[in-house]
């Protein structure tokens, strides 16, 4: 759509051969007065061009830290990051701050969770969109303004010219999220990290925003990492799903495979906790008892064991490695995986502190 800044740095020769993004054994630790929080603890994933990877997990499972860690958008102090993030053949973790600034925007962009706080309250919408256009794509004022109006139009905002002069506080939540998307997509990134892009919105707007993201993604052949706590959100939109628990990947599979044959009891529990309209009213929602573990001092063995209905002694003693099931692209970490939805271990009276 628009000329990309720094295109030379990311040659197109390998465009189709390699995956766009390869994250290998990424670790992000925060050193706090309470101890080291292992927010992301050895995560690997790949994103191919134009595809969507859904990252699913509860609050506190490290999803947001993962997405920021992939970008390199972390605080500078008391943070330790290890592992590699290879984007279009280059390792982002070894790049200088200056190099990263040329990647952020035209190559990788992020859509933030809360449109109320992620927009600068005292700057007009137009200024916030045109800024990156002028910085990265070296557009002049007029050109940037026209592009910004076109962007607002493409994210479904009526009378875009008028909206450019509005302050974020004059827009509704849904409109602000659309503006956020327009800002993120302004420089035509090849990869978008959407961090719970619809959490702050009501359900009707959620669907609109997700559909919009999907169609923009198809138009631009963008890859996307869609981070959410809601399996229902990624079910119809992601090509592959990564289930995270306590900073680790517990299951990873192409979407149909995952829904057809979940191996990890946690994945299954997440699916069961989606409310369904077909259920008779008054049906209790199958919630997962307890809370995610403290990442300063995670439980020994499988991290889900304290909450798992099928946990055995082995689960509490040693940590299950990530292994393949059936096909090579279905990975899971469980000693007693479900087979065809049936547990391979007996139900235990797991003591869960609610």
């Amino acid at each position, binding site marked *: 759509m628009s000329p990309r800044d720094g295109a030379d740095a990311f040659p197109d020769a390998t465009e189709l051969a390699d995956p766009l993004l390869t994250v290998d054994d990424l670790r992000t630790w925060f050193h706090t007065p309470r101890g080291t929080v292992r927010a992301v603890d050895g995560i690997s994933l790949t994103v191919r061009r134009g595809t969507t990877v859904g990252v699913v997990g509860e609050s506190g499972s490290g999803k947001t830290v993962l997405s*920021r860690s992939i*970008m390199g*958008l972390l605080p500078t102090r008391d943070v330790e990051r290890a592992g590699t993030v290879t984007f279009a053949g280059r390792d982002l973790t070894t790049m200088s701050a200056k190099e*990263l*600034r*040329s990647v*952020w*925007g*035209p190559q990788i962009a*992020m859509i*933030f*969770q809360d449109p*109320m*706080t*992620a*927009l*600068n*309250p*005292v*700057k007009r919408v137009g200024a916030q969109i045109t*800024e*990156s256009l002028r*910085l*990265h794509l070296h557009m002049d004022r007029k050109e940037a303004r026209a592009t910004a109006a076109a962007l607002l139009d493409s994210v*479904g*905002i*009526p009378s875009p010219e008028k909206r450019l002069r*509005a*302050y974020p*506080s*004059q*827009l*509704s939540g*849904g*409109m602000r999220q659309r503006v*956020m998307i327009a*800002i993120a997509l302004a*420089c035509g990134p090849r990869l978008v990290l959407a961090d719970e892009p619809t959490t702050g919105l009501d*359900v*009707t*707007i959620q*669907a*609109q925003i997700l*559909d919009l993201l999907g169609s923009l993604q198809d138009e631009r052949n963008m890859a996307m990492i869609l981070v959410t706590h809601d*399996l*229902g959100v990624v*079910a*119809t939109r992601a090509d592959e799903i990564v289930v995270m628990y306590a900073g680790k990947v517990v299951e990873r599979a192409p979407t*149909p495979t995952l*829904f*057809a*044959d979940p191996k990890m009891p946690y994945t299954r529990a997440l*699916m069961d906790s*989606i*409310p*369904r*309209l*077909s259920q008779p009213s008054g049906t209790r929602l199958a919630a997962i008892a307890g809370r995610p573990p403290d990442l300063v001092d995670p439980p020994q063995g499988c991290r889900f064991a304290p909450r798992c209905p099928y946990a055995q002694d082995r689960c509490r003693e040693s940590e299950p490695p990530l292994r393949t099931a059936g096909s090579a692209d279905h990975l899971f970490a469980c000693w007693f995986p479900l087979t*065809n*939805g049936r547990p391979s271990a007996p139900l235990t009276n797991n003591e869960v502190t609610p």
Partner: protein
Amino acid sequence: MPDDRELAATGAAAELLADITPGDAALSEEAVSLAVAGARRRPLGIIFWLAVTWVGIVVIAAIFANLLPLAHPNFQNYSAINTGPSIHHLLGTDDLGRDLLSRLIFGARVSLVVGFGSIAIGMIVGGSAGLVSAYLGGGWDATMNGFAFVILAFPQILALIAITAFWGTALWKITLIIGIGSIPLIFRVVRASTLAFVNREFVVAARALGASPARIIFRELLPNVLPAALSFAMIGVAGAIVLEGTLAFLGLSVPLPTPSWGNMIAEGSTNGQLQQNIYIMLWPAISMFLLLLSINLIGDRLRQRFDVRESLV
């Protein structure tokens, strides 16, 4: 069984979204935003405009003092000593026969230059330092903050008296000293209000779009901090004017016979002048009082007006 599950799971997602048809929410949004915009336009009020008028009169009179049909502030009319207001001397004369209106207007120059000049210095140095310090955080911030505390701990008027005694009392020196003295206070205020924004997500969002630290500080943070900083600066201007007045009262500001409001008040209230001719100190005292009141009022109303966050979010 697996097929069932797949159907059930994806079906669930589909159901979730089934009755959600993209509606025309956008249309009603227009009305909402218009209503909000309408609510914001609150008039500034007559008192605000009176304050602006007074500050405007003082500033314009001070700037164009040379062009006004006034006697020289140091010209002594021996036939009119200690007279009250009259046609020839609108505000009267002092004990040396000098025209009080002329001295009042020329004296305003000193107050205004010291007031606005020193705070401009304080804002540029202290304000930038506060922004940068809050953005950097960590050791830098702690060091600069501690340094500001050390300076603040020193009684300012004592420092001023000591420095002027050694260094002299030229107008630019007074301005510079008061300006430097205001740096730590402005630093603290700007730093504190910047800290409230530094960890907001729009700063991270700007970083994620490849904005450099300088760009984030001056394009993202500064506009947020500016209303609070300007409103504090207005109070600072008033404070600096009072400080200069205090120094002048003690005879430590611009040397006589150059008029300033502070030394006029000093002259008018010593040697029994207060009983003989109250106008000498009355006019500068009233003028200074009204100027300080106006500046504070303007600062406060402007903050309310331009603080998008306060009125809307």
